[in-house]
């Protein structure tokens, strides 16, 4: 019984982590699908999302959900600006240059956050600090909230991509850029939209996760690196791959932390990646080229 409880507790932790990782990885994979550039600045957008929510809540006393919406909007604009000002001028350059530019943007955003909010670790209060008892299993409300909200976002994104015309243009462009422009899809508009969605997803993920973690300028680094592991696992550019990959890493970490060592839990994802790349360089779920 005790074993089962511990096990279920780890399942809950895995779902929480996995939900957050999936949201971050989804944005990253969408941008990769459109741009074919690993956006190293995506973690900085995640960090910016947490800080904007934190700022709105502590400085202006804004309600948690409104703060989350506000931060999603702000980061969506930031992300779109990044596309316009940084990636758009570089779209004909070789792989190296956009990557370095993304790093420049990451350094800039981190330093700017430090300039505004300082290097200290901040704590963001959740309005939902209660604990729920579920048949012997204890779960903080915020964790359940994260799981529910993250999976709701995934469903919404899925419906958007599959059921709306605008969503289909994103998929079309990710699948075949030339073909998409041939049928009259405006590549610029789709690229901007994709960046906006990716930024908003990162901000929402950060605002959900911040109350059970800490907010600080370098907080995006580890998350983005894991998101890269996830999109390699799931196949770069694949939406279902990002979700499945996110859950795999989430579970690997929560179980690894509990049954192996919590000191090394951050390494688990990377070791997993090194092992997988040694065996299958294309990632677990990639069938063909990408």
């Amino acid at each position, binding site marked *: 019984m005790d074993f089962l409880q511990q096990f279920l507790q780890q399942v809950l932790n895995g779902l929480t982590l996995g939900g957050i990782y999936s949201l971050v990885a989804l944005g990253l994979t969408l941008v990769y699908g459109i741009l074919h550039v690993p956006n190293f600045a995506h973690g900085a957008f995640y960090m910016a999302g947490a800080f904007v929510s934190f700022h709105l809540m502590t400085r202006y006393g804004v309600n948690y959900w409104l703060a989350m919406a506000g931060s999603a909007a702000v980061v969506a604009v930031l992300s779109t600006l990044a596309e316009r000002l940084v990636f758009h001028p570089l779209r004909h350059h070789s792989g190296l*240059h956009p990557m*370095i530019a993304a790093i420049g943007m990451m350094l800039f955003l981190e330093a700017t956050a430090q300039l505004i909010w300082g290097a200290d670790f901040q704590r963001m209060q959740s309005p939902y600090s209660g604990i729920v008892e579920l048949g012997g299993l204890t779960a903080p409300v915020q964790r359940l909230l994260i799981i529910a909200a993250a999976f709701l976002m995934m469903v919404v994104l899925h419906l958007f991509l599959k059921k709306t015309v605008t969503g289909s243009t994103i998929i079309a462009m990710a699948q075949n850029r030339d073909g998409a422009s041939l049928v009259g899809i405006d590549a610029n508009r789709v690229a901007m939209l994709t960046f906006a969605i990716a930024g908003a997803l990162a901000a929402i993920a950060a605002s959900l996760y911040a109350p059970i973690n800490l907010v600080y300028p370098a907080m995006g680094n580890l998350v983005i690196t894991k998101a890269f592991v996830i999109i390699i696992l799931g196949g770069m550019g694949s939406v279902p791959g990002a979700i499945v990959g996110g859950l795999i890493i989430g579970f690997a970490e929560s179980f690894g932390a509990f049954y192996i060592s919590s000191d*090394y839990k951050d390494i688990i994802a990377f070791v997993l990646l090194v092992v997988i790349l*040694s065996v299958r360089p294309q990632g677990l779920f990639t069938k063909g080229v990408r």
Partner: protein
Amino acid sequence: MKYLEGRIGWTLLVLAGLVFPFVTGNDYHLTVMSTAYIFALATLGLNLITGYTGQFNLAHSGFMALGAYVVGILTVDHQVPFWIAFALSGVITALVGLPLGFVSLRLKGHYFSIFTLCVGYIMFLVIEKWESLTHGTVGIIGIPAPTGFGGYVFDQPRALYYLVFAFLVVGAFVMHRIVTSLLGRTFMAIRNSDELAESLGINLARNKLLSFLLSVFYAGLAGGLYAGFVRFLGPDLAGTHHTFEMTTFMLIGGIGTILGPLLGAIGMPWLSQHLQFLQEYRYVVFGPLIILLVIFVPNGIVGSYLAWKARRASNEAKKLAAAPAAKPVNTTAPQGGATHA
């Protein structure tokens, strides 16, 4: 090309480096410059794999830290003499790089970069967590100063400056020989198109691995030198920020040239010392600077100079060729001009 990468340019640079301690009497400047030389040595290695072979390596500071920790652990915890530990720093770093190099062989482009980003993180986390070996976040203190012949100890800024400078000069010379040899051309062929290179009979696996190992060897030696120079170590050395900084040096100077990354690596710390008032906010300036450079000066200072020279040369050739033609409409003139030239 002749002036910049030729004998005259190199001789002037070496002379400037030799004279520098006499120009400034300030120990602080010597220390800044020596640190810059150590990172320049590491950047030479990064430039080989990234600038010449075209694989964007994000684990470079991890390998540098590895070399530094080899020296730190061997000298402090096992009383190994500095130079033996130093020699091992390059070798052990390359040995650790070997299996990673084998994995990376199968990875191209973005996959390689993300793989190395993760490798860098693993190194950082291992250094931070494996306390019994690396002393964890406390770091290693009391690394002995390098000694010379007859019990001479390199512990004065000027002596250390010349020691580090000597390593940089030798490192740059060897790297120059590597990239101007057949091997260097092979690396560049792989960078430009690995499919084409393979069709020419180039052994991709062997050359990529060799480039990776050489690059890692440079990082390890630079790290070992850093340990003997700074004499204390912490996990921060392995942080990705250092890799990003080295990438910036490389980019500002000019990727895929030897002189460019050297100038970048020497100039950037100098610049950041003069931007001291910005402190940790210097990335507010450097971040956009990197972006602007990537967009507007993608080949860096040296690269752009070389491109400008090439363009001027071709423009002159065109002018010569077009000289007989009065109007550009006349299509027969360039042909005549061409045979004339």
